[in-house]
């Protein structure tokens, strides 16, 4: 009897730990919305999201320039990171000899493990001066930020893509090779198409990491709240806006920064739902892949 009670209590205890992440998310949503809502309500949802002036001292809280900044940096980074990481992932999964795989695995893990501030610092002291010399201007720009982000999202896309390439049944590959295809034809026509949903999931996860990155972007993007006219213009990301101004914000300005977080939250949720759609509809197996 005593044993049975103990078992029962342990099971309930474990259940509580299991739902802890849901409780935490609900708490996060509650607190961000409670603090952010007053600003969005008083300034108007549409004005907040589609307003192009951010001037806290004058009471203007439009975040559109930052949405454009975030998306600009993110898509530029994807344009560079996707080709390189897909090639590298195919190399790791299909072509590299085992000695090379043994080197690449810890390399990818280390790239994933380097703190974002270290990437930002590297960008600030190496990349910014380099950009300044090559292209003129200050060197702080959308392009500089996206180059740093490219390196940061490489490991995310590579590891998810490698997992999905490896989960393609071995028979597919054997059948294609037996028909006389070359290795490249097999990869292009059989393995890669079969792994495609997983590859797209990896790209979505990489995109999420790019949108959410804060300090590395602050250190190299220039942080000016204006619409960029070229990739060499400085921009401010949504995340940067929060980190830059939270230190001294009071009153409605403080709430507007939480409002910025709400916008960010919705962008991430859209990506999450897309990734989950692929996960359940296309049965994508994502190994350790997280945003």
């Amino acid at each position, binding site marked *: 009897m005593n044993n049975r009670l103990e078992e029962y209590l342990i099971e309930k205890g474990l259940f509580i730990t299991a739902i802890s992440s849901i409780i935490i998310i609900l708490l996060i949503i509650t607190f961000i919305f409670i603090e952010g809502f007053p600003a969005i309500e008083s300034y108007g949802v549409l004005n907040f999201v589609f307003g192009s002036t951010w001037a806290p001292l004058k009471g203007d809280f439009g975040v559109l320039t930052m949405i454009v900044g975030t998306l600009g940096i993110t898509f530029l980074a994807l344009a560079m990171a996707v080709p390189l990481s897909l090639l590298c992932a195919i190399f790791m999964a299909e072509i590299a000899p085992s000695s090379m795989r043994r080197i690449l695995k810890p390399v990818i893990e280390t790239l994933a493990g380097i703190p974002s501030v270290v990437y930002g610092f590297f960008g600030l002291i190496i990349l910014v001066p380099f950009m300044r010399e090559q292209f003129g201007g200050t060197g702080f720009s959308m392009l500089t930020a996206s180059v740093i982000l490219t390196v940061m999202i490489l490991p995310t896309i590579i590891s998810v893509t490698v997992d999905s390439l490896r989960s393609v049944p071995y028979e597919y590959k054997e059948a294609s090779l037996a028909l006389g295809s070359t290795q*490249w034809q097999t990869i292009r026509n059989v393995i890669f198409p079969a792994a495609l949903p997983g590859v797209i999931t990896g790209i979505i996860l990489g995109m999420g990491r790019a949108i959410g990155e804060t300090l590395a972007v602050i250190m190299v993007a220039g942080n000016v709240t204006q619409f960029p006219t070229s990739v060499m213009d400085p921009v401010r990301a949504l995340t940067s806006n929060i980190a830059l101004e939270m230190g001294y914000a009071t009153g409605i300005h403080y709430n507007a920064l939480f409002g910025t977080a709400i916008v960010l939250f919705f962008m991430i949720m859209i990506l999450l739902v897309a990734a989950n759609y692929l996960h359940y509809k296309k049965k994508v197996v994502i190994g350790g892949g997280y945003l």
Partner: protein
Amino acid sequence: MLFRFISPKTSQKIMKTVFWASGILTIIILIIIIGYILLEGMKVINLEFLLSNPVDSGREGGIFPMIISSLYVTLISGLVAAPLGVGAAVYLTEYSREGHVIKLIRFGAETLASIPSIVFGLFGLSFFVVFLGLGWSVLSGGLVLALMALPTIFKVAEVSIDAVPESYREGSLALGSTKWQTVYRVVLPAAAPGITTGIILGMARSISEAAAILFAVGAAITVPISIFDPGRPLPLHLYIMATEGISLENAYGTAAVLVIIVLIITIVTNTLVERYQKKMMGR
């Protein structure tokens, strides 16, 4: 497509070169980044740098208080997140059947893993610092980081508990053990290397995070004694050193310390995983 005009053999050769080049390029990128940081940073790092207090708000002196702050927040995050993450993993693998609740729990962990760190920062400020009244302290910082480490620990623990062969459980249950005895005495010890890896990876996330604790730890440059004292973990120190242009040298030193920590973590986790795989496959 371009490939129609090139013979399959030639395109195979071209693409093989491209694949090799991209693999090598990835390695070169890593070598350039950590090589540069280590080369510049090692000039600054010595025992005195690691064990002395900063002088003149970081222009001179060392990073001792930052190391202590980092240890504090990382340990707190591990102590809080490990039981929650491992408990959740045990529940999902041992006690539940697939269903809506399980799907919801998985989605919860995924969402938690994908929330931007700066949003955690805002939550930490409004919940731990203000609402719970913990103030700017290493405790507030550690708790925020625990939330970020939780999904990593959960995910890795779940995978490694799942990998324990079913026969282990059956053997234990057949001997008359209860479910919890089986989990505690058989399943968890067998999965221990994997779970340890998960906890290390979770704490690795904590030790390298700065944005989430930006508004929670208070950025003081004194050594935190109690958990209610403010502190300034290494990544935050690096951020402040670099952006406020206080001392490039000390920034290099701090960055190098962080890179060395990451390298050690990568080596340790890889050794653990290799051992685990040998143990599970070498039956």
